[in-house]
């Protein structure tokens, strides 16, 4: 009789010749938070899909409460009490909270088989209350914040009496305060006996929340440790298989003139009175909590949604930026947060993606000179070491890391003076992260001015020459590289909403 609720032994899974999982072991105790870490492509999501019944393993066995089981489909896994919560909440925006929790399982009145609305709302309130939420179950989900939507997902899992809860990157869109709320709920669930598998790229969270941590690398199971028995560097070593010497390769760069100046930029409801300067060769880190308004400022500078008031100066001259075309014409480029939505044209080739913004350079009266185009694309592909079968390959067939490089290549193609990067390494594994940071340093060294928006403190501290902190639409702090500390930045980012300063113990 094992004291594990879930045990996987020797799981193997192939996808048309690619080994996603090579004999992975994994076990889970009730009443524990078990972190699952590994780089992108290590096999975490495949393992999760095996546990939730979406995929069937090619070899190996699964035991649930000591009995061998086969999760032939997701419904069977769900019936065993396995629930999962993904990064993107899978909710119904037009329906209310209660319906979202009970969809497909609405309580019915005995004789008429009518939906028992009253009971549904009562049950929902109970579950939400047990999570410490006073969310009204009549609220339509569309208006809820990401954090609240996640709570609804958890409530959903509770309503099916989930015994195993899998959470995949739950914190990526949450503010620090919301993360704390979430962790409290997770701890409460754990104490009540639920087993939780927690996946996150933010390794600090593992140390705050988890009891044990398991590491996967390239589809192999590396090992499991109790969190109190392992240090961060050792964990990274297990994940990466090599010691990452310097995670933040920042060079000292000779800075040039002020290339971008933003003065009293304001947009009603989003940000107020934003002013800062950016020099050539400088990396300015824009820090703050999610929702502080940083992306909105970037989009205003780039012309996607121009500000209501305030001025922007580029290279000493006042600029009128009403659209991305204006911004591009001035040499400002913007790498948006969401690469897939906003970064690539999946059905087009690598060449076409790279040359998209500069296509006119190859055109005579509109007619495109394909040979010249290919030549330029090739230059960039080589410079950034983009691995493809050929430049004619469609971008959707490339790996995530190479796709990111294509996006960067495209922006380099317009020879920007200012590059705005919005969460450049979010959702990227440790190895590629370092590569992107290296690229940033090199570009800065060549005179490029970089405005880097990031919610990851280590990245902000490691890469920025100067740091500007925003909170709820206002600039609340400005630090040089030398004087910045985690505490100072967090304080500037987080003073309480009702005006009280919130002295918080950070992660």
């Amino acid at each position: 009789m094992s004291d594990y609720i879930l045990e996987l032994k020797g799981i193997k899974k192939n996808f048309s010749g690619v080994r996603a999982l090579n004999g992975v072991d994994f076990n889970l105790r009730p009443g524990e938070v078990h972190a699952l870490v590994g780089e992108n492509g290590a096999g975490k999501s495949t393992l999760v899909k095996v546990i939730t019944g979406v995929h069937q393993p090619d070899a190996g066995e699964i035991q649930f409460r000591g009995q061998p089981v086969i999760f032939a489909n997701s419904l069977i896994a769900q019936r065993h009490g396995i629930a999962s919560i993904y990064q993107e909440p899978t909710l119904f925006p037009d329906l209310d909270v209660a319906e979202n929790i009970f969809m497909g399982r609405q309580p019915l009145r005995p004789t008429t088989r009518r939906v028992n609305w009253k009971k549904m709302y009562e049950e929902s309130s109970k579950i939400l209350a047990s999570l410490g939420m006073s969310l009204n179950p009549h609220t339509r989900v569309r208006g809820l914040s990401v954090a609240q939507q996640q709570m609804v997902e958890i409530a959903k899992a509770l309503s099916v009496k989930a015994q195993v809860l899998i959470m995949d990157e739950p914190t990526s869109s949450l503010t620090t305060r919301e993360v704390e709320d979430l962790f409290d709920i997770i701890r409460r669930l754990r104490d009540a006996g639920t087993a939780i598998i927690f996946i996150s790229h933010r390794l600090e969270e593992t140390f705050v929340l988890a009891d044990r941590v398991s590491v996967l690398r390239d589809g192999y199971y590396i090992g499991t440790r109790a969190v109190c028995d392992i240090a961060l560097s050792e964990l990274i070593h297990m994940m990466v298989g090599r010691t990452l010497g310097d995670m933040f390769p920042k060079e000292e760069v000779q800075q040039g003139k002020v290339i971008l100046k933003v003065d009293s930029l304001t947009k009603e409801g989003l940000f107020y009175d934003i002013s800062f300067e950016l020099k050539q060769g400088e990396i300015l880190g824009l820090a703050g909590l999610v929702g502080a308004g940083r992306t909105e400022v970037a989009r205003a500078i780039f012309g996607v949604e121009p500000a209501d008031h305030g001025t922007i100066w580029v290279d000493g001259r006042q600029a009128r930026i009403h659209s991305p075309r204006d911004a591009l014409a001035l040499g400002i480029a913007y790498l948006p947060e969401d690469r897939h939505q906003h970064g690539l044209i999946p059905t087009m080739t690598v060449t076409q993606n790279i040359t998209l913004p500069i296509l006119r350079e190859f055109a005579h009266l509109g007619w495109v000179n394909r040979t010249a185009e290919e030549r330029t694309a090739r230059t960039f592909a080589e410079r950034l070491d983009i691995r493809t079968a050929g430049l004619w390959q469609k971008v959707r067939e490339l790996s995530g890391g190479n796709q990111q490089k294509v996006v960067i290549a495209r922006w380099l193609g317009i020879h920007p003076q200012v590059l705005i990067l919005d969460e450049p390494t979010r959702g990227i594994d440790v190895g590629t992260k370092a590569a992107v940071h290296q690229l940033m340093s090199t570009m800065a060294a060549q005179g490029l001015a970089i405005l880097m928006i990031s919610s990851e403190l280590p990245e902000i501290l490691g890469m920025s020459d100067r740091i500007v902190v925003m909170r709820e639409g206002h600039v609340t702090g400005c630090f040089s590289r030398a004087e910045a500390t985690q505490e100072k930045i967090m304080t500037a980012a987080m003073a309480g909403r009702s005006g009280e300063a919130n002295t918080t113990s950070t992660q």
Partner: protein
Amino acid sequence: MTSKTRILQKLFSPATLFLHWEWLLVLLLIVTAAINTTLSPYFLNMRNLVDMTFNFMEKSLIALPMTFIIISGNIDLSVASNLAMSTILMSTSFQAGLNIWLATLLGLAIGALGGLINGLFITKVKLPSLIVTLGTYALYRGVAFVILGDRAVTGFPSRFTYLGYGYVGPVTVPLVIFAILAILFGFSLHRTTFGRFIYAIGSNEETCRYTGIAVDRIKIILFTLSGLVSALAGIILTARIGSARPNIALGFELDVITAVLLGGVSIFGGEGTMHGVILALFLIGMTRYGMGLRNVPGQIQIIVIGSLLIVAILLPQLLRRLSLRVRI
């Protein structure tokens, strides 16, 4: 398995056929021509073939900007109604005494305006093209009815009707006009920045905005062009049949959209070729002609066209699924 068999397998695998949809169309075109020849021995006569094109040149013209629009991820259901509206306005102003050529220009302007209105609602008010053009499909046709009711305008001068059924040497005037525009549109789509942007918008519109592509401006141009060409098609159609009624070109949008989709353009946008569409246009035209040879009434013909539309989507899907299964 010998390498020869492997090569043959690859040549005729569903994947290849799917990847080269145009070859399938060519095949179907040949088959249809063969069938038509058995129905009428005069079919393959040059003059006859040229005359056959009379019936679908107007639809073919409209299919050109429609191809652009569908590749860009939109749709225009209002083309036939716009045609009616601009034609009626052209005809009634001619009837009221305006010079025929000025009236023609007026018609073209109205058509362009109709398209522009579509474009503005879609870009400025940010409404989906399906809904906007569903509304203008009713509105423009309605305007045509309001103006003419159940009457008709006839009595066009022969120099005008020449546009519809005149000849330039061995070929017809509409065919010449179509050929010129087809070449223009085709090269635009495949070889210019404008064409590239259309594909990009259809594939991922948001990314295009971030890349500085003037998405809204391009969409407005596409819909205005669609309206303009619809009006042009209307001029030619009116010239050909010699009269203008509010129910002119009723149901044209079906044939046009069918041809574009049959030509390999994806309804989701981002993919498709002009030569595919042109092949499909001739395929449909030839099929309708063949049915005409057998005295199949128009109302029955639409059963075939409707089925063709559905098959045009089903077939690639089926082939894709089949080829996947073959691979594993």
